[in-house]
């Protein structure tokens, strides 16, 4: 009798939503009046359920989650609707009540593991602080237990270390430990792994999933990656410009997106797309033929004559950095170790690797901004290390970079016209009128309105800035473009747009790309050849199809496996 009562009440509880957000509106007080950041948001999290909010930057996904834990920035407030936690409206709850709830009932794993641990306190102390604040036992053994549960090996010793002694993945584990230390019923994870390498991301998410399912914790996962959301969550909520535009079971949402925005998102998510971006229209090739390159006569005519030539040859490249260690002593750090590969004209070669693999160092050396310790870089038959100043100047015309950070790579003091004109002026090409004409053409090429010329970088979005950077790189009609994580900082839709633009420019201008990236999903979309780097060494090279279909090395396999959403099977027409 009593046992069945318990079962009923537990089942009863399991049927009631743990967190319910109804018609939530959040506004921010800014210099130019009140701005609505979130409107009519609604979402339900059942006990033990994982719900993901997906959206691009500025869509209001983080704001919604912060409102649920009562941590909106000072100028933001809930201006309407309800946040029901177990039936209790906490949207206007006093700070005292929120302090009671935080940690115990709602835990949080913040986004950036690098800045969210206090550098002056030991990890153990920071865990202890949380435990003590929530009235839980906080002896060294309890702290070690919490850390061990989050998957930190040798937890007792680790607890005595400082954050700077931890790698990014370990810090994120420590933060997860803190977030889950008081066994909250709801865990809010705000982009918990976006700053980490894919393989680490996978480990951490696997572990998080295991922990929360053991504890029966509900998770509100915030991410920009649709593939990751679908893989990890029961339910996906898509937000766009402050509104929830679609919500539903994750797989169904991916297979059958209803709202036009979700459709767009699904279509351009790189982790879900399986096929290389091709500019079919320009080449006049049927899409069937694209799947079998080389057999299509239409496409081959344009590219073939130049395809055979190696425009870049990298031979046994090594770079050793001297690291200072104490008085006058230095240790060698080999960033790039015996790397050789070649790049054919008119193709895209991707260098893939995790942070610290030396891929960016290779790019810097190819750009002649860094001298190799040994080895050769042969560009168009000439060893670039033998160039004198004048020849380097000419070399710069032919090899151009596009950098990762679209916010950092444009001089904020220059308007867009001056930015794009600078390479022309530096190389003394044409007169004022012809330069202006060229700038207009370049803006057309990257699909920006010509009125952009008068604007300054701070007025443009990340994608627009990256287009400007592309236009600047194209100004000198280069043959090779080195893209150093050129799309990594962009939102998915914008990323897809920029990748399409790059592909289109390649087919139109016969450009050669050397594409440095950590994102294998992007590689599959754009590259012909892949070089996989690990700790300075080249571990695998081959055509993209070969590497993706039949990876030879364990490391490559691990990388491929870690692509979020890779394990989801989608009907081809969606991908």
């Amino acid at each position, binding site marked *: 009798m009593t046992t069945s009562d318990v079962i009923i009440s537990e089942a009863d509880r399991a049927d009631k939503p743990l967190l319910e957000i109804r018609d939530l509106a959040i506004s921010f007080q800014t210099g130019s009046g009140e701005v609505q950041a979130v409107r009519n948001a609604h979402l339900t999290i059942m006990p033990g359920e994982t719900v993901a909010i997906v959206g691009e930057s500025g869509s209001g996904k983080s704001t919604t989650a912060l409102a649920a834990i009562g941590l909106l920035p000072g100028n933001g407030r809930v201006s309407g609707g309800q946040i029901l936690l177990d039936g209790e409206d906490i949207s206007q709850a006093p700070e005292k009540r929120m302090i009671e709830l935080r940690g115990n009932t709602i835990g949080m794993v913040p986004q950036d593991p690098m800045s969210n641990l206090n550098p002056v306190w030991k990890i153990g102390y920071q865990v202890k602080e949380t435990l003590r604040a929530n009235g839980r036992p906080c002896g060294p053994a309890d702290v070690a237990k919490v850390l061990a549960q989050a998957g930190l090996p040798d937890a007792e010793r680790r607890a005595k270390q400082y954050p700077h002694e931890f790698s990014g993945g370990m810090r994120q584990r420590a933060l997860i430990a803190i977030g889950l230390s008081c066994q909250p019923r709801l865990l809010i994870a705000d982009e918990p792994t976006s700053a980490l390498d894919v393989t680490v991301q996978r480990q951490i998410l696997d572990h998080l999933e295991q922990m929360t399912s053991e504890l029966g914790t509900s998770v509100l996962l915030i991410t920009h990656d649709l593939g990751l959301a679908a893989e990890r969550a029961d339910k996906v909520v898509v937000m*766009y410009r402050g509104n929830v535009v679609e*919500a539903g079971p994750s797989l*169904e949402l991916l297979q059958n997106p209803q709202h036009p925005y979700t459709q*767009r998102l699904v279509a351009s998510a790189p982790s879900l797309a399986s096929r290389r971006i091709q500019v079919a229209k320009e080449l006049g090739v049927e899409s069937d033929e694209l799947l079998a390159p080389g057999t299509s006569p239409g496409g081959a005519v344009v590219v073939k004559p130049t395809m055979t030539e190696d425009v870049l040859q990298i031979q046994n490249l090594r770079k050793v950095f001297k690291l200072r260690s104490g008085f006058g002593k230095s240790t060698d750090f080999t960033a790039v170790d015996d790397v050789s590969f070649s790049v054919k004209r008119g193709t895209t070669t991707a260098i893939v690797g995790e942070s610290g693999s030396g891929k960016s160092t290779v790019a810097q050396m190819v750009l002649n901004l860094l001298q190799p310790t040994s080895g050769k870089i042969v560009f168009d038959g000439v060893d670039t290390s033998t160039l004198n100043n004048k020849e380097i100047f000419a070399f710069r015309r032919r090899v151009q970079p596009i950098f990762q950070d679209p916010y950092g790579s444009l001089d904020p003091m220059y308007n867009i016209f001056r930015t794009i004109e600078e390479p022309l002026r530096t190389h003394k090409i044409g007169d004022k009128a012809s330069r202006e004409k060229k700038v207009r053409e370049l803006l057309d090429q990257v699909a920006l309105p010509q009125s952009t010329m008068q604007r300054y970088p701070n007025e443009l979005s990340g994608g627009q800035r990256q287009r400007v950077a592309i236009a600047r790189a194209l100004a000198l009609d280069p043959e090779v473009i080195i893209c150093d994580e050129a799309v990594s900082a962009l939102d998915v839709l914008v990323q897809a747009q920029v990748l399409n633009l790059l592909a289109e420019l390649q087919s139109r201008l016969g450009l050669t790309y050397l594409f440095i990236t950590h994102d294998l999903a992007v590689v599959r979309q754009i590259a012909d050849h892949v070089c996989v780097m690990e700790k300075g060494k080249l571990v695998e090279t081959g055509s993209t199809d070969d590497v993706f279909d039949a990876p030879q090395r364990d490391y490559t396999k691990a990388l491929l496996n870690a692509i979020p959403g890779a394990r989801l099977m989608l009907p081809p027409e969606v991908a």
Partner: protein
Amino acid sequence: MKTNREIEHFVAPVEETPLLATDSLKTDQAPLSLWADAWRKLRRRPLFIISAVMIALIIIVALFPGLFTHVAPNDNCQLANSDGAPAAGHPLGFTFQGCDVYSRIIHGTQASLMVGVFSVLFVLIIGVTLGALAGFYGGWIDAVIARLGDIFFALPLILGALVVSQLPFMRENRGVWTVVMVLVVLGWPQMARITRGAVIEVRNADFVTAARSLGVSRLGSLIRHVLPNALAPIIVLATMELGVFIVAEATLSFIGIGLPGSIMSWGNDIAAAKSSVRTNPAILLYPAMALSVTVLSFIMLGDALRDALDPKSRQR
């Protein structure tokens, strides 16, 4: 944990949030450079408006003292008027020597302002050049310039000024330019330090690397990209130093190693008034007030500029 629970599939009506073209450009606003942006912020700030009006007034006074007083400052100094109370045509009374206080303050503006402006100008030329070279090239250039700056930095202003002004050349040619020289010699290291820091912050920015890979030379990228982006803190410091140098001139004149008594300046007037402090403190008060108001204006302007040029607050 995947559950078997039924999850409803919700789709918002499309009209509610109309889709924008991905990454569309706002074209309805006027283009905005750093300076235009700063100006837009400044012109609404009372702090800036008040200080700018004050400084404009001070500059006009310095350039055209005749517009503000018809009494020649040093004519008709009659000992009968010594420490005299305000009288018709002499609103602030008379000094110990019987000269018109108001007229002396108006005519003293020029020397004070000249010292400030020229000191800042030369400090900018020397400090920014050395600081930029040190910050941009680093290595031994940095070490040499930093140590050189430390030597001058270690000298207290008064002590340093006493030593420098005792050089025979300085003693023989005392005037505005020797005071400027003393202040520049002792004042450039601070400007160099600020510039060095700002340059180091900018020199590793991606846009500098981008410029270099476009073929812009190292010096070219320093002048065209790094310095313009490091300018904000330099301008702020220069504005504030202008006030500081005016005070320094008054200090030096007060202890008798600044401007010679033949040149009218606020510092000299304050020095001369010290003998009458007990009998007529007003004589001390008026030039000191002129000095404070001027310095305050410049420091307020610097403050307002710092807020407006702060890159972190820069967005629409």
